[in-house]
Every structure is written in structure tokens, then in C-alpha cells.
């Protein structure tokens, strides 16, 4: 279980981007964070694996506080948290298989990592994971020859290669067409259920969030304004989440990081 308690983050002197954020995410469930652009969705996600250092609060993953760990400890924790990105962030000249194997690098010694020494079992597992996301035939293709949806599935396989407890998804479908969106979201929901993973997704498409997520966290201007099962989300809740920010939002969403 992931528990975020009293998380605060300030940029610069005055601008507070997260104000006392509290929420939980359960294994086996898809949890979606929704809210207008600039509300702090990305900041929350990146605070969880400490790509962004937050100012105060607690982030408990299975009762272990991520914020308290030292550099080596953090690397270890990060290794158990998969992450997928809007722009997939694969190493494009490498094959799909090699990119999936990168999921193991965090568990290796520096030397083994530098030379990319993987065991036979790891290689077979990488191939099996690619088959699981439906890309068995593309294992030896360079990633820049794959479509966006396929690249995102390679990204998911890379995250799974880490044997994660949790996968953080930062706008995973923002650059995808509707068909690929469905494939990717189906895979994520299936993973949550079958592998009992915590799946935490930033989304700006409300309909997708309501379709796929079990649990919704609504955020506005760095504050949690709603947390509950997706069945509880109604028009009034949505208005509260998206208040004041309706007009400029659509234009900038795609560029949000």
C-alpha cells in the first residue's frame, strides 16, 4: 500500500505547488490522479520516487518511508517502482529487448551495468514480458521503428522487468491514438488485478480515468479536493476539481511535464 501523508512542496520563495497532500493507493487497484494542468499531478508522481525532492511530509510504501532513505537506499527503492512516461523515454537506437532489459540495470553492480551483462534467465524473462504485452515479434526491432503505442508497451515491459510493487504512469496515453490508448490502459488494469500492483496514473482525460480507475484522486492548485472510488465521482465533484481552470487548460495539457 502507498500512503502519502502531509506532503508539501514549495518552488522558489512563494509558489507552493503541493499543499498538505494526503492520499492512499491500494495494490490491485488503478488509482488515477486527475486535475487541471499545473495543479501538481506531475509533482506528486515525481515526489513519490524522489525525482523531485519535496519539502516535507511522508511517503510510505509498505510502511517504509521513501523520504528517509539515503542515496543507496533510494536507488534500491526506486528499483521496485516502475515508471512509464508520456514520451516513453526509451533509448531509441536500441532494440525493444535491450530496452526491457534496462529494467534490470538498477539491480546490478556498476561493472555489470556498464557492460550490460544479463543472465540467460533475465533475457528469457524480457522476451516473455514482451510477449505478454503483445510485442513478441518486435523484440529485435529498434525502438524508433515502433509506433507510439508499441513503444509505450515496451515501456511497460521495462517497468515490469523491475519486478515492481508499484508502477507510476505520467500521462501514459497523452500522445497516443484512441486504439493504442485502449490497449495500454487495458494492460495496466490487467496488471493491477493479476499481479496485485499499485498502479498510479496521472491523467487529463476524465472519461478514461472514470472508465479504468478504481480510485480517483482529484487535485486542484496543489490541494487534494476529492479522494474516493470512481463510482462516487459526479458532476459536482468534477466541477470542484476543474474549477477556474477550464479555458486555458486544453491548450497546454499536452506540454505538461
Amino acid at each position, binding site marked *: 500500500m502507498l500512503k502519502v501523508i502531509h506532503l508539501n512542496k514549495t518552488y522558489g520563495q512563494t509558489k507552493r505547488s503541493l499543499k498538505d497532500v494526503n492520499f492512499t493507493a491500494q495494490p490491485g487497484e488503478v488509482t488515477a490522479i486527475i486535475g487541471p494542468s499545473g495543479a501538481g499531478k506531475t509533482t506528486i508522481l515525481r515526489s513519490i520516487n524522489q525525482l523531485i525532492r519535496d519539502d516535507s511530509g511522508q511517503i510510505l510504501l509498505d510502511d517504509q518511508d521513501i523520504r528517509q532513505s539515503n542515496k543507496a537506499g533510494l536507488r*534500491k527503492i526506486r528499483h521496485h517502482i516502475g515508471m512509464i512516461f508520456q514520451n516513453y523515454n526509451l533509448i531509441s537506437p536500441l532494440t525493444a529487448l535491450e530496452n526491457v532489459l*534496462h529494467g534490470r*540495470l538498477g539491480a546490478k553492480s556498476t561493472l555489470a551495468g556498464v557492460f550490460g551483462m544479463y543472465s540467460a534467465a533475465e533475457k528469457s524473462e524480457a522476451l516473455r514480458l514482451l510477449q505478454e504485452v503483445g510485442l513478441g515479434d518486435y523484440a529485435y526491432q529498434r525502438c524508433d521503428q515502433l509506433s507510439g503505442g508499441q513503444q509505450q508497451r515496451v515501456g511497460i515491459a521495462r517497468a515490469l522487468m523491475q519486478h515492481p510493487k508499484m508502477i507510476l504512469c505520467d500521462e501514459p496515453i497523452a500522445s497516443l491514438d484512441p486504439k493504442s490508448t485502449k490497449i495500454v490502459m487495458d494492460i495496466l488494469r490487467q496488471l493491477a488485478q493479476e499481479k496485485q500492483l499499485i498502479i498510479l496514473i496521472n491523467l487529463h482525460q476524465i472519461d478514461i480515468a472514470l472508465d479504468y480507475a478504481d480510485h480517483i484522486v482529484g487535485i486542484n492548485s496543489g490541494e487534494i479536493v476529492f479522494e474516493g472510488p470512481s463510482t462516487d465521482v459526479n458532476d459536482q465533484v468534477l466541477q470542484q476539481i476543474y474549477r477556474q481552470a477550464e479555458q486555458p487548460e486544453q491548450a497546454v495539457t499536452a506540454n505538461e511535464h
Partner: protein
Amino acid sequence: MIENSSSNTKSLPTLPATKRVTLLTKPRLILRGVLLALALITIYSLITLDRAGLKFGEAFQSLGVNLKAMFLQPTVGQDTWALLLRALATSVGLAMLTTLLGALFAFFIAVFSARNLVPGWLATSIKAVMAFIRSIPTILWVLIYSVVMGLGANAAVVGLTFHSIAYLVKAYSESIEETSTDTIEALKASGVGFWPIIFQAILPSIIPALLSWTFIRFEINFANAIAVGAAAGADDIGYYLFMASGFYFNFHEVGLIVYLLLGVAIVLEIVSMKLRGHYLQKN
């Protein structure tokens, strides 16, 4: 003559002072200024050039005679084919050696001078040192090292390598900086350390750029190797070129040597084309 090109900016009939239509944007204005300044320097330079009492008619005539001797009647002169070919091999060897050594050192230094990998102050200071080394002509480095190590191959290699490193660090670190920070972040997020990211993520992404820069440097180093032979007495083809033209005045031999150098240049051109074609195709 580039200035003349935009003759469409010639003064238009004066319009009311409210808004003059002008096609002269600021970048164009600066461009013209720069070209004008360069033109003035050139004219000044051509007027004041030290001619040392040259008679141009005679000089060009003698150049014509020499060029004819070179290109139409090349011979080995007082040296032998074996000697010249061996000297040519030395030049190629010098170029390869210094490029390889330079590339190896430069890669590791470049890692520490890429802004997306290390703190800004470190990157900036390494780059500044490299810029300083680079700004001093290669031949001076070789001459300086020949005092310490004695005239010959060792000084030539060290001097050439020195400049190669500084040149390649700049090229490599810029290539590294072009890899997206997002892909680096993706691996950081899964707990991967510094060196594995370099070798597993960055290196594969920039290999084509590295190859092409390294090859460019190889061509430069070949030219430099000849210069070193001529000006610092390394025992390569440059030395024979220097002796044939400056000492024996045998332009037939100079012609042969120039043909040999052109031959190497053609081979290099073909290899570089094949190498790039091969690599692009493979991936």
C-alpha cells in the same frame, strides 16, 4: 556581394513618418555590418600585404612551371618508392594512433563536461580548459613537447593527441548534451547508477555522432601529421615533402608526394562514406 543581393531594400519613396516600410531587419543589418567590416579588413590587408619585391608575372609563371613539373612529370626524386611509402604509412599511423588515443581520453573527459550529467561549474571549467588547449595550434603543442621529450615520434604523438582530445571533448560533450534528459531520467527513476546510464543509454544513442566526429578528426590529424613532419621533423611524409620542395627544389618529387596524399584522401573519403552508409543501414 551578399549585401548587394537584397537590393530590394533600396530606399523606398519616403512615406509619412508614422510607419516606414523597411525590409531591413536587425539580423540582416548585423549581417551586412559584419560583411562590410570583413571586406574592409580584406581590402586593407591586400593593399598592405608584404610583397617583398615580388614580380607577380614571374612568380605566377614559375608557379605554372612548377605545377606542370609536379602534376605531369611526377618522379621519386632522390628518394625511393619504398622510402616514400614507408613515410606515408608513418603519417597514416600517426593519424590513427593520435585519433584513437584522443577519442579514448576525450570520451571520459566529455562525460564530465556534459551539462546534463554533471554540475554546471564542473562542465564549464573543463570546457574552458579544453577551449584554451584547442585555441593553440597543434603544431605549437608538438614543438613544445619536442623540447621535453626530444624531437621525434613521441613528441609528435603526444602533441597531436593533446589537441585531438580538446577538439573531441567539445564535439563529444555537445553530442552527449543532445541526448534527451527524459530518457536519462527514466533510467534514474528505476535506480540505475551513473556509469551504467552512460554506457547503456547515452553511448548507444550517440554512437553515429561520435563516429562521424572521430572520423573528421582523423582527417584533420592526417593533415596535422604531415604538418608535423614538415615543421617539427617527425620522420613522415611531411618531412620528405619539406625536403623535396624546400631543400632539393625537386618539384617532380613534390608532385609524386602530392599524388600519394591525394590517394590517401580519396581512400579516406570512400571509407568514411562506406562507414556512415554501413552504420545507418545496420540500424
